[in-house]
């Protein structure tokens, strides 16, 4: 099905199942420990051996020799595969760093060997017997030091939301010079780790020249193609299966060393092999969100109308790597006739930087929305009012191109009212509650809405059950449930009559999960397949499909009412289709919007920051399942709070690695850090987005929330920190008198 015209009335609009707050259909498995993740699939193949991955102990250089005799002789060892004896393997299409093979070390903890043994304990012990002779070389590990040598990013950065390397509208410099009120500040954001709870893990089994990988991956089709390329086997000889994925946040978009080394280890051992990356490998062996240095300049008239806005960002990456596209939202979020956005990329020898939840917008809004707060203060304006003043209904770069639907104003106004923003004391450091200095802050949320082609197969059986198969993944987003809701709505069935099977590369190719495109794209694919199934049912029953009403488990036409299952009485009915998105997203700008409001307390003695209240108001089209969508938003708010207050991969700029590579050193928010969170969805539909009239919501929650936290800290203390995260050491020597 081609989607190239705005959606009209369709069966989804009945909203009998879609749009209702619905418990997850996979909930009873996840809460009982019976949902099996990659490493746990004891039942899929017999005789599984254990692989243990060894990471490089240097950040850059070559390996002169590897001594594996002791490891090979150790009890239980079945095979040792080293990078030296393996030719450098091709990269997957989306990989920047090479995953395995050859003598070159590109980054710390790059995989250099996998040891396969009968048991985990034996594999681990033997891995530590492998001795590696390194020939270290100097590398570049310090973004601040390399920033001056960073090169402009070429036209299309190809990353995250994409976007031009440099874009100009009007005459920024001229307008900025003439503006009566200006801001020019530089900020920095830290390297961050996805730190998903399930480590990257894979079981691989060869059957002749065919290989199956039970793995943990967000994008089955990408992984499928990449593994075929990396392993050098035809695509039809590779199968991936990932029915449950224990979190990804972008860290499992691409094939990683676990999958490659499970496959190589299994080949070498002649047995199925299971590999999980150990937690200490995840920060340096896989990918991370790159640190940025960002400069924002805003010029405005005295009434708060922006006349000039510039956002420039510098980040670093390995050769062939892409930038963190932190300036993207600034092209679209506020009006202003004269504009400049630009990115520079420095070459670093740290591990691969790549997409992490809302790449670009998350660190970009962390900075832009603090700059907006600073500018509002300079103007003597309320920060909400300043944003309202500069709303735009058109793409500021192309004024004849409208947003498909944009209600940032509605989010700001409703959020302001619900949060009690009017009670805010605009003078920082004036509100006290016992030992706490109390402050409130707000920020706009913005994230582009992307869509990808997505396919599904639906099958109706004689009992009136519909089974949906698609290689879509559920990474905690709730895909199982919204897909079931979609099929139930389309076929006029209760939710219990739908079975959803996901994550298998034998199923039709879906959008996969990433960039908050998964929910809208994959359910639209299911919609398309169900349209075909409805036609097949009508044809089988001899009903004109235009007249047919699918409701309450029946198909009705005129006076006739037939149980749906009867259409499949003589054999299952199967239909398959994909949604393909046309150029509506070129004609219109499709984006999602929100407003974050946060209250913090800062301990007057210790500068400890506690988040006390959080509210997000979101405008993101139709909300397919308000229960899981809300959860996505609070999850984003939580991760964004981490970015604002604690998350930072600490770079050892001498040895070139992230030093705090575990969950004790790399701090993420825990229960005690997060208060009750409120989320309000504006009741809206976006027929330009898809037949579902939905948009992405999985990343909107993280966008802007960190800035709202930072602005609240400023309001509480009067201290403006521009180097994130805001750890208490950055406040302590500047705290107001405790008295």
């Amino acid at each position: 099905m081609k989607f190239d015209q705005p959606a009209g009335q369709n069966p989804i609009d009945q909203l009998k199942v879609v749009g209702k707050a619905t418990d997850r259909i996979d909930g009873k498995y996840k809460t009982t420990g019976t949902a099996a993740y990659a490493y746990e699939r004891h039942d899929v193949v017999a005789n599984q051996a254990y692989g243990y991955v060894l990471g490089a102990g240097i950040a850059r250089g070559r390996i002169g020799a590897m001594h594996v005799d002791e490891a090979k002789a150790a009890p239980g060892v079945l095979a040792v595969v080293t990078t030296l004896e393996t030719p450098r393997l091709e990269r997957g299409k989306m990989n920047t760093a090479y995953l395995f093979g050859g003598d070159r070390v590109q980054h710390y903890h790059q995989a250099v060997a996998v040891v396969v043994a009968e048991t985990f304990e034996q594999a681990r012990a033997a891995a530590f017997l492998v001795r590696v002779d390194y020939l270290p070389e100097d590398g570049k590990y310090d973004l601040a030091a390399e920033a001056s040598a960073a090169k402009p990013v070429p036209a299309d950065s190809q990353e995250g939301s994409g976007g031009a390397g440099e874009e100009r509208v009007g005459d920024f410099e001229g307008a900025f010079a003439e503006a009566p009120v200006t801001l020019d500040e530089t900020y920095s954001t830290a390297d961050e780790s996805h730190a998903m709870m399930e480590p990257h893990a894979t079981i691989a089994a060869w059957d002749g020249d065919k290989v199956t990988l039970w793995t943990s991956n967000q994008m089955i089709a990408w992984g499928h193609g990449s593994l075929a390329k990396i392993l050098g086997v035809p695509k039809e000889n590779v199968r991936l299966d990932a029915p449950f994925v224990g979190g990804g946040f972008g860290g499992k978009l691409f094939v990683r060393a676990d999958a490659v080394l499970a496959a190589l280890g299994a080949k070498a051992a002649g047995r199925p092999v299971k590999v999980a990356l150990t937690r200490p490998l995840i920060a340096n062996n896989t990918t991370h969100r790159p640190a940025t240095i960002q400069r924002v300049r805003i010029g405005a008239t005295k009434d708060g109308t922006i006349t000039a806005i510039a956002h420039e960002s510098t980040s670093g990456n390995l050769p062939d790597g892409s930038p963190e596209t932190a300036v993207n939202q600034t092209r679209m979020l506020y009006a202003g006739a004269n504009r400049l956005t630009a990115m520079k990329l420095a070459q670093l020898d740290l591990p691969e930087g790549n997409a992490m939840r809302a790449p670009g917008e998350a660190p970009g809004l962390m900075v832009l929305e603090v700059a907006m707060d600073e500018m509002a203060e300079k103007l003597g304006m309320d920060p909400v009012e300043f944003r309202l003043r500069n709303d735009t209904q058109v793409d500021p770069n192309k004024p004849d191109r409208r947003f498909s639907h944009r209600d940032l104003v509605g989010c700001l106004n409703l959020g302001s009212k619900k949060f009690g923003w009017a009670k805010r004391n605009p003078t920082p450091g004036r509100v006290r509650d016992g030992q706490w200095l109390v402050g409130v802050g707000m920020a706009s949320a913005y994230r582009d809405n992307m869509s990808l082609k997505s396919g599904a197969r639906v099958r109706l059986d004689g009992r009136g059950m519909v089974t949906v198969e698609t290689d879509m993944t559920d990474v905690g987003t709730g895909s199982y449930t919204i897909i079931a809701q979609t099929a139930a709505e389309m076929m006029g069935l209760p939710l219990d009559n739908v079975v959803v099977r996901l994550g298998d590369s034998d199923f039709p190719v879906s959008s996969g999960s990433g960039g908050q495109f998964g929910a809208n794209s994959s359910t639209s694919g299911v919609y398309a397949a169900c349209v075909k199934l409805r036609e097949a049912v009508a044809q089988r029953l001899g009903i004109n499909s235009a007249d047919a009403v699918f409701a309450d488990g029946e198909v009705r036409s005129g006076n006739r009412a037939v149980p749906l299952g009867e259409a499949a009485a003589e054999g299952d009915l199967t239909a398959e289709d994909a949604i393909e998105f046309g150029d509506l997203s070129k004609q219109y700008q499709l984006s999602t919007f929100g407003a974050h409001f946060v209250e913090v307390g800062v301990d007057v003695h210790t500068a400890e920051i506690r988040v006390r209240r959080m509210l997000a108001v979101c405008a993101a089209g139709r909300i397919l399942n308000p229960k899981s969508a809300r959860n996505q938003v609070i999850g984003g708010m939580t991760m964004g709070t981490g970015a604002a207050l604690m998350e930072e991969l600490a770079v050892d700029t001498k040895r070139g690695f992230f030093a705090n590579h575990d969950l004790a050193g790399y701090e993420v928010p825990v229960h005690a850090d997060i208060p009750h969170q409120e989320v309000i969805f504006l009741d809206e539909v976006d027929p330009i987005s898809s037949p579902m009239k939905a948009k992405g919501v999985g990343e909107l929650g993280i966008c802007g929330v960190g800035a709202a936290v930072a602005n609240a800290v400023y309001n509480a203390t009067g201290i403006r920190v521009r180097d994130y995260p805001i750890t208490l050491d950055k406040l302590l020597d500047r705290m107001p008198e405790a008295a």
Partner: protein
Amino acid sequence: MIGASAAAAMAAAAAAAGDAPAGTDKPVMAKVVLNVNGQRRELELDTRTSLLDAAREHLHLTGSKKGCDHGQCGACTMIVDGRRINACLTLAVMHQGSEITTIEGLGGPDDLHPMQAAFVAHDGYQCGYCTPGQICSGVAVLAEIKAGIPSHVTADLNAPMQVTDAEIRERMSGNICRCGAYSNIVEAMTEVAGRQA
């Protein structure tokens, strides 16, 4: 930061001492009896096997998760002899005769424990990987409060202990949920506490 160099150093030290390098010895095996979810389970294990791996790899009870293997994330939480512990930080052979409850012992898909049902109703999870640990911790936390065991945020040790949001958040902070469903987990636990009261 365990790497090849550290391992090499250890091996060299062992060799210098005239011993075989660490790790090349035959595994030391031991018999251990665990009472898991009300069932007596006899295992012969490499003594290096953690309680978590004994459950996951030997008993195929994979509900308890390995998120870090360092006692930093809480995904492996089990209730052992009435107390919640990180099963990755303890060796199976240290639990001879222990009464162990894993997530599988609380309830199954068609027979949910009230805490499991509350997690479903309040959407107290997303990816599900930390969930068994959260639920085992949640059950144990309510029992700890009921038993009057204080926490860091308990203001008055003489007053009857209350199931407050602050108590729940403090006591649950060893269980990381990277998806960030904390707000919903607190609601789920509060509902169960209310029902228990």
